[in-house]
């Protein structure tokens, strides 16, 4: 009996210490600006353009007092996991971190990132495309600056469309899309695949975003979830349910699976609505269709509209645990807004900076990179189309502070609508309930409509 008491006492003591340590970690971050010209920065991120080394060299040359140590964390998921571990531990965190846009809110809410308006980043709003910029705000303050953007585009296989007698260029609304889907299905192909797995979560958010839906709203500690009664959601549900019921979409092939690439490559899947970063993936995943693919603006919900939405994208943030926040911001600014941004764009990143999107060299069909892409797209000037999409207006859209959960739960719940176990409305309702429960578990006050 006495031993049990001792164990309880020891546990309580350790618990108190942990609690104290947690408090200590959170309170003394306000004055960590450090020397803006002299610092050794640690930078976590991934390097999809294989160009980070050169860009960092350029930065160090322009800022002789600052050195940057780049740690390649591989993937977005690994980076955010490592960052949340480092923040929980209270040390070992980098100064600058690359994050996928939807996870920025999560770290902003849990006080892991620095509000960049401290350094005047809020004044840069008009320099960036609206889509990526809007996603990185929390309480109307920027917590990251966008490196790239992913306006949702309509990619289609012209060869398959021609066979079905459909002109891809003429698809302006989702109603046109539905009519085209029927004709394409008659040839044996599918207009696209929709399987409701967790990999379809990003296209899902992009599509409902474009429909003006707000499936969830975050206001400080209050979350409102309105998965099925929101006007935009209703529009979306009705439309997709129709595609499922009439067997117009391939519900068996998840995005990014091996089958997916093969079906893109043999023409079974005739089009995709996905981010502007897709061309390079199509070129490697569907090499047999070279010359056949085209890109066009996303179909609209109402005729004559020009509404875009974002699918994917990444950004740079300054970590609150950093002792060199001023120098770290300098680096972030260089990479996203300064000379580094141009270098990133030159090595394949789809830019979010209006200056680059509007520049002649970006849409110049004679550059080596553009020529390769345009050849694959049958001579179309791809970047011209993409650049136009990136500069279209977007509605405000917010991700949940627990976005990774929202993504994995999407696969568990919503896929049931695509295997036809339940209706999409029911599946999304269950999904909303699950999101609400998670929100409550995380201490939010959740209202479900």
């Amino acid at each position: 009996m006495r031993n049990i008491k001792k164990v309880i006492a020891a546990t309580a003591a350790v618990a108190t210490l942990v609690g104290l340590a947690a408090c200590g970690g959170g309170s003394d971050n306000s004055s960590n600006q450090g020397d803006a010209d002299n610092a050794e920065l640690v930078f976590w991120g991934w390097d999809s353009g294989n160009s980070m080394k050169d860009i960092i060299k350029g930065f160090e040359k322009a800022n002789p007092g600052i050195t940057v140590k780049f740690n390649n964390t591989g993937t977005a998921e690994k980076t955010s996991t490592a960052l949340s571990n480092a923040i929980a531990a209270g040390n070992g965190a980098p100064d600058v971190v690359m994050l996928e846009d939807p996870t920025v809110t999560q770290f902003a809410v849990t006080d892991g990132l620095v509000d960049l308006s401290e350094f005047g980043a809020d004044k840069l709003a008009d320099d960036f495309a609206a889509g990526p910029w809007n996603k990185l705000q929390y309480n109307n303050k920027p917590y990251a600056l966008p490196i790239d953007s992913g306006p949702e585009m309509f990619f289609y296989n012209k060869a398959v469309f021609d066979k079905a007698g459909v002109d891809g260029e003429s698809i302006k609304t989702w109603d046109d899309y539905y009519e085209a889907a029927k004709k394409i299905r008659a040839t044996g192909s599918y207009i696209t695949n929709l399987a409701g797995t967790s990999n379809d979560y990003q296209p899902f958010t992009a599509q409902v975003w474009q429909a003006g839906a707000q499936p969830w709203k975050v206001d400080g500690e209050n979350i409102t979830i309105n998965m099925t009664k929101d006007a935009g959601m209703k529009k979306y549900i009705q439309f997709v349910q129709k595609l499922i019921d009439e067997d117009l979409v391939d519900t068996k092939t998840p995005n990014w699976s091996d089958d997916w690439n093969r079906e893109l490559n043999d023409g079974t899947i005739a089009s995709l609505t996905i981010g502007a970063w897709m061309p390079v993936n199509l070129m490697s995943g569907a090499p047999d269709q070279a010359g056949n693919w085209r890109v066009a603006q996303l179909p609209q919900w109402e005729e004559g509209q020009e509404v875009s939405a974002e699918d994917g994208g990444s950004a740079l943030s300054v970590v609150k645990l950093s002792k060199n926040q001023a120098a770290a911001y300098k680096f972030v600014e260089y990479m996203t807004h300064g000379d580094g941004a141009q270098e990133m764009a030159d090595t394949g990143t789809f830019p979010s900076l209006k200056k680059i999107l509007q520049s002649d060299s970006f849409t110049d069909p004679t550059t080596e990179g553009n020529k390769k892409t345009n050849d694959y797209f049958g001579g179309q000037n791809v970047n011209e189309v993409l650049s136009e999409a990136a500069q279209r207006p977007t509605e405000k859209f917010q991700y949940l502070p627990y976005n990774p959960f929202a993504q994995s739960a999407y696969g568990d719940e919503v896929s049931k609508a695509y295997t036809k176990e339940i209706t999409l409305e029911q599946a999304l309702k269950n999904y909303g309930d699950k999101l609400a429960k998670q929100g409550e578990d995380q201490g939010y006050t959740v209202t479900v409509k």
Partner: protein
Amino acid sequence: MSEQTLGAASAQTGLLPEMTSRHTAQARINKHKADWRGWKFMWPFALVFVFVFIIPIVYAIFISFFKKQMIGGTKFVGFENYSRLFVDQQFWSSVWRVALFTIVQVPIMLFLAAAMALALDSMKLHGTKFFRISTFLPYAVPAVVSTMIWGFVYGAKYGLVGSFNDFFGTNLDVLAPDVLLAAIGNINTWEFTGYNMLIFYSSLSTIPHSLYEAASIDGASEWQIVKRIKLPELRGSLAITVIFSIIGSFQLFNEPSILQNMVPGNAITTYYTPNMYAYNLSFSGNQSNYAAALAITMAVITMAIAYAVQLRSMKEQMK
């Protein structure tokens, strides 16, 4: 597999106290002296063991009594995580799934392994060495790789199953939700039969040949030798392989996680097995405390089952 070996090691140390109590008085006097000398050899292992095994377990138990929230921070909640787990349908559905998996897959795998070991030991086969290595080889292939290979084989559109369907005009889909667990069981059987076969085979090869000679002089048939000499010898290693296999199947993780994106629809949920559920809770659900409670509970369930099996086999050996 490393967890399995450690698990088995700790299961075996459970036997030690009873054995030492049966030692003679002489041994008991020497015991005191031997203790510290033994530790000199033990400390490198003990140190690593404490750091990578004991401390993480204690830490997991410790954090399972807390709850970390995005709003409100970390607080002590006692047994709340455990009581929540008790009524968590997703958790129990995953436990029943691996239990069903264990009940069906383990006997099939061990039967095949024993049959192969007996065939090898019969000394009537040509190319024994080749056979032994080739059955063991799948175990040496990393689980991630072998799952990908099987995933490609299983594909109903572009895989081997797809080619089969094209050729015979059939409509097979081994990745359909109702047969998916069997498909995963097949991967596991392929991976671990050779490993278990080797354990059986090594215990068969400890039987002295004089026994066989004596048996054949007495006029025993080959089948009688198997039944009277070889099978009783296998009983001891059977207990070990059963325990390994139960622990292994309850920890099912690699195969379903890799297959997740290869299976049509979303038949493999994030809570398909207890381990996948724990992983997703802590890495995408921000609920590492609840995940720790889950891990501890699963460890207790697995240990209880392994202990029951061990107890039963010991009783049988006493007879």
